[in-house]
């Protein structure tokens, strides 16, 4: 087991390095330089030189790469040219939103998708099966941004004065603010220390923060703001998960050991739950892991539609605005999360399927 784990971790490292390298080179290939992007087309040459020097952009590319690699390893992600602030600080402010959005979407996708898939498989070749799969097909075909706008239209305008009304943009309603738990509980944190940054990061998860501090008004408001973006983002993964669950379960249900279990007189519920479901989980877990990348990509579109200042939107702005440090830092974090999730998926295989563990 340990050697399996080690092998998986070691295999992830070259991919991670490759990603950092590709991002670095891609950025240097973007036509135009960050100086004119930041200071405007009419920036003088001296102004540009000073700018490049201040941001380390006057060094040869290979030196820049070396410095950058060293900084990534020490978690020093540099400073945003555009916001004049450390990338780490931007991450502390923006990553929690995207994390909450992606996790809520993933939760919706799994909690609705898996039962739908099971239902379709149990009612194979009936109206329920056909209907569910038709819906799933429509679900994977919908552009996230369109669904988001349509949801906003229905829930913020058509249902405006009903109890089902939901806000179409932002994280919190005007006039509300989220008080971080460490302030609410009167903790004394040293300004600028690692732990103060850490608590600031955790506290920026509005839903989680107001849940633990018991600030129900803000909590409920944050949840309401999260519902539409999360539903829009969840639709495609949900449909894919439902389809995979269905086909995996159908595959397993035709196996001999299912017939044996039935012949032993095991109840149908028990057959599905403990004999079929666990064996059908493997492809489902794979697809859930793979969906994370799609969620992060979809987050760019969802955050644009719902005016949310998360990582996705920030990354898009940084790429188009040539904010090198932000693109590099954010991409490393996003790709790192992606690689780690894939690693966890691989490890869960070992848990679900002893044959892999013993290999």
């Amino acid at each position, binding site marked *: 087991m340990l050697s399996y784990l080690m092998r998986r971790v070691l295999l992830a490292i070259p991919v991670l390095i490759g990603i950092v390298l590709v991002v670095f080179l891609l950025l240097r290939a973007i036509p135009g330089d960050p100086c004119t992007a930041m200071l405007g087309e009419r920036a003088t040459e001296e102004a540009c030189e000073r700018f490049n020097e201040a941001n380390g952009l006057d060094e040869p590319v290979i030196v820049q790469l070396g410095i950058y690699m060293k900084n990534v390893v020490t978690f020093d992600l540099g400073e945003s040219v555009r916001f004049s602030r450390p990338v780490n600080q931007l991450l502390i402010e923006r990553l929690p939103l995207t994390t909450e959005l992606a996790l809520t979407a993933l939760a919706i996708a799994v909690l609705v998708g898996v039962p739908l898939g099971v239902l379709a498989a149990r009612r194979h070749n009936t109206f329920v099966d056909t209907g569910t799969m038709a819906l799933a097909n429509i679900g994977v075909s919908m552009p996230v941004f369109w669904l988001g706008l349509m949801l906003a*239209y229905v829930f913020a305008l058509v249902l405006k004065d009903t109890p089902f009304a939901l806000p179409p943009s932002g994280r919190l309603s005007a006039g509300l603010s989220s008080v971080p738990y460490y302030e609410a509980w009167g903790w004394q944190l040293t300004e600028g220390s690692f732990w103060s940054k850490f608590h600031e990061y955790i506290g920026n998860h509005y839903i989680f923060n107001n849940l633990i501090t018991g600030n129900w008004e803000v909590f409920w408001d944050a949840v309401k703001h999260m519902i539409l973006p999360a539903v829009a983002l969840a639709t495609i993964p949900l449909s894919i998960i439902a389809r995979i669950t269905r086909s995996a379960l159908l595959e397993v249900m035709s196996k001999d050991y299912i017939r044996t279990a039935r012949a032993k007189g095991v109840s149908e519920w028990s057959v599905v739950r403990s004999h079929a479901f666990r064996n059908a989980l493997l492809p489902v877990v794979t697809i859930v892991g793979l969906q994370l990348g799609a969620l992060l990509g979809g987050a760019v579109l969802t955050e644009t539609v719902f005016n949310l200042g998360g990582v996705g939107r920030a990354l898009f702005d940084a790429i188009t605005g040539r904010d090198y440090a932000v693109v590099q830092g954010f991409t490393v974090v996003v790709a790192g999360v992606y690689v780690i999730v894939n690693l966890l998926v691989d490890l869960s295989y070992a848990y679900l399927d002893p044959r892999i563990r013993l290999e």
Partner: protein
Amino acid sequence: MSKLSRHEAMEKLVAESSTDQLFEKPLGQWRLALRRFRGRKSGMVGLFLIASLILVAVFAPLIAPYDPNEDLIGEQDVRRYQEPCIHLLGCDRDQPQHLMGIDGNVRDYFSRIVYGSRVSLQLGFFTVTLALVVGSAIGAVSGYLGGWFDNIVMRFMDVILGFPALLLAIAIVAVLGPGLRNALIAIAIVTLPGYARVMRAQVLAIKESDYVAASQALGASPMQILVRRVVPNAMTPLVVLATLGIATAILEAAGLSFLGLGAQPPLAEWGSMLADYRNQVFTAPHLVFYPGLAIMITVLGFNLMGDGLRDALDPTLNR
């Protein structure tokens, strides 16, 4: 049933069947697949959707009542963002008919949607063709040569797959500059590893087979073996992947256009049309609704057809 001896039964069979039937060629792989495909309702729905879309795209000038870029101001009594006016649904007959309303530049929205089908279909086909050709070439060469070359190429494919697809596409478009052609190239690059992997796996499997060994013994060159033996066998999974790939390509291209990186105005492209009026969603929802619906129907068509093809081409799935 009367008892017949084996001999009698045999004679009866021969008598009843014409010689044509006896010597009929067995159905080929593709004929069989076609027969199976016809039996799949969802595949046929997909085929119908795509066929209709292709007809709409080809006959766009006949279907669209106006030029997609024609400014109707001064010609008709219409205003910006005007709601759809459909005579059949009770719109005043004195009013000019606009099935999907009027956009922000006083153009007939229905005509723009109709012409948009040309852009999306072409984009889907070209993107996938590019990814398919380059990807499978890489996969074939990599699998055939093996060794360190194969290792490096495949690790590079892993790196591409290590990014969320849309983010990498955004980055590539940022390098190449916004525009439909560059969006096409970007999407082709991010989807390329899928084709490369499938092709490589097929090459590895087929390379060891007896009939390739036989071809080699007969003096066939590696190129001949690749083209004559390996490629035809790898076609099945690639065709399925490509059909589903068109759906993904159209969806991703629409996303890039929505972010302002794909099609540029005044081109009638669904994603950018949606982006143009996203701030009008509360005042003129029809301008957001129709392009999205068009994207969804197109993508749905390719997804359904891809699924139908997979079921038809892979007999092992038929239970």
